[in-house]
């Protein structure tokens, strides 16, 4: 059975990496976000080391008794995760650079459409402009509320057969 009590130093380091990583992730500048992502990724990788149990001898058959070997599986996963984080870091860096090229800064911007809807909501206007709300003539609601009683006979009939309001 592997000794599964975690290494305290690793736990403290993971906690520190996650704290700083989350803090940086909440920043607006992409390069700080990038550093945050890297720190979080490293924290997760260290977590895998803890998950694999205590360190032991190299896991090669014949070189050490099986009971003393360290668990190779988490290490394989960490390697994969490191490669993936590397790729993502490169992409994020390229994107931050492109943002700087275009705008002179690398900040995450607000969505224009969201801004527009929020402004309309603040002014209590409609998102849609309808033809019947735009013009000064009777709105659909007013038209609907008009009397259209055909039995009373007081509604005048227009020459083309329609009722005249």
């Amino acid at each position, binding site marked *: 059975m592997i000794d*599964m009590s975690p290494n305290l130093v690793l736990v403290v380091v993971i906690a520190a990496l996650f704290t700083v990583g989350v803090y940086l*992730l909440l920043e607006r500048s*992409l390069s700080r*976000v990038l550093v945050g*992502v890297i720190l*979080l*990724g490293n924290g*997760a990788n260290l*977590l*895998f080391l*803890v*998950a*694999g149990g205590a360190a032991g001898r190299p896991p090669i*058959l*014949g070189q050490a008794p099986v009971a003393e070997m360290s668990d190779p*599986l*988490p290490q394989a*996963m960490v390697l*994969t*995760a490191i490669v*993936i984080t590397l*790729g*993502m870091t490169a*992409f*994020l860096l390229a*994107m*931050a650079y*492109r*943002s700087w090229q*275009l*705008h002179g800064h690398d900040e*995450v*911007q607000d*969505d224009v*459409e*969201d801004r527009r*809807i929020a402004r309309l909501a603040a002014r209590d206007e409609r*998102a*849609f*402009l309808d*033809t019947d709300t735009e013009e000064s003539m009777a709105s659909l609601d007013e038209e609907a509320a008009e009397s259209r009683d055909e039995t009373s006979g007081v509604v005048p009939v227009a020459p083309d057969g329609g009722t005249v309001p």
Partner: protein
Amino acid sequence: MSDPVWLVPLPVVVPLLASGLTLALYRRPQAQRAISVVALSIVLAVSATLLVLADAGPLVIDIGGWAAPVGIDLVADRLSALMLTVSSAVTLCVLLYSLAQGEADGDEVAPVSIYHPTYLVLVAGVANAFLSGDLFNLYVGFEILLAASYVLLTLGGTGERIRAGSIYVVVALLSSVLFLVAIALVYASTGTVNLAQLAVRLPQVDPDVRLLLQVMLLLAFGIKAAIFPLSAWLPDSYPTAPAPVTAVFAGLLTKVGVYAIIRTQTLLFPDGRLDDVLMWAALATMVVGILGAVAQDDIKRLLSFTLVSHIGFMIFGIALSSHLGWTAAIYYVVHHITVQTALFLVAGLIERWGGTTSLDRLGGLAKLAPVLAILFFVPAMNLAGVPPLSGFLGKVGLLQAGVAVGTPLALVLVVGSALTSLLTLYALIKAWNKAFWQTPPAELPATHIPLGMVGPTAALVAFGLALTVFAGPLYAYTGRAATALQERTPYIDAVLPDGLRGEGVSADLAEVTP
């Protein structure tokens, strides 16, 4: 009879291989196109074959001959095969659409040499996620498709796409880190990441730890599936991408998250302790999503919000934790992939024809472009759930399942989903009135739409109708898939035939030379 398991890795291997080929042939656009179409056609054929074969029982392959719990395995059971078939049909249609668009616009407009390899990688990642029988491999599948999606979303690197892309990439990276942490915790508590072995070992884990693992995994998948309150990134980022890219993202990427939730909820955490939380999340997703859609005046953004809203229906079905619920949820996923993709493709056609997707500036399309009107109207009504289309059948299934469960919360969800359907109808009818019936405020450019773009869109619309016509057999199939999910044993037995190891070389059997 030769063993057909060699088919299982093909949906991952073929697109990856083709991706490498298209990258090497970046100077020959014609060759690139041919390779992409052939590769995706092969994937579709293989997936359809798997769909038939998997009905007899899950097909499992241990990659490289390494036995299952340590080696990685790919599993094609009914659910995976069904998702794979629908997704490959959709990706093929979208590819044909984008080819026609590229041809019409001239290849200088978009960097097509990057487009094909990236698109194929995306398909491979989606297939890998659907087939994976291993939590870490699922993570790798997610990363493959996400990395491809980052590139596709920021294609061309315009200011608007970089803005949308930075939000999308950061949120996706966060969910990846969450997933990674969840995997580390799963490994620490069980010593395995193989899904079948996890299903065996997790019940022995302390219930509180198990709850933590479930929450972590749900958080990671919830961001990908865009469940409220983790959905805010989606309507911001999707509409800015090129139409075919948005279409395939909307159809597939969120559904991969939904698939992962179905898989982990049914196989790993069958006790359903978070079902109530999921129910509330489903309700919030439906209502908040559709209210967002009502406020929009841009077709693409409106559709993005309906996408978020309808994820709620699937989560509702999953959270019911009943056979009926899962049957309906799986059917709904299939329906929604098809319909949502079709609608985004039509939005692309409208944008091309009218030069805009803003409902304030469009108008009179019903008269000016009647083909567009039909192509929009059918999937729009399908999405809203107007009888007798497949959206209606899926929703009725969900409502029946909700009533059958009968808890007060389930009944609240039943009312909520009926309300959401009506609001969907309202939002789509409003879009219809503005874009197709109102007098156009200004002359529209009326750009010619090539037949090659209409064809794939019409094919997807027809596929959506076929889901209605063949709803009986399909519903029976999703029912059998749900049965397998409920029993759990077919999956576990297929991966670990003797209860401990898969087929292939394992450390116990290997000769140890001192």
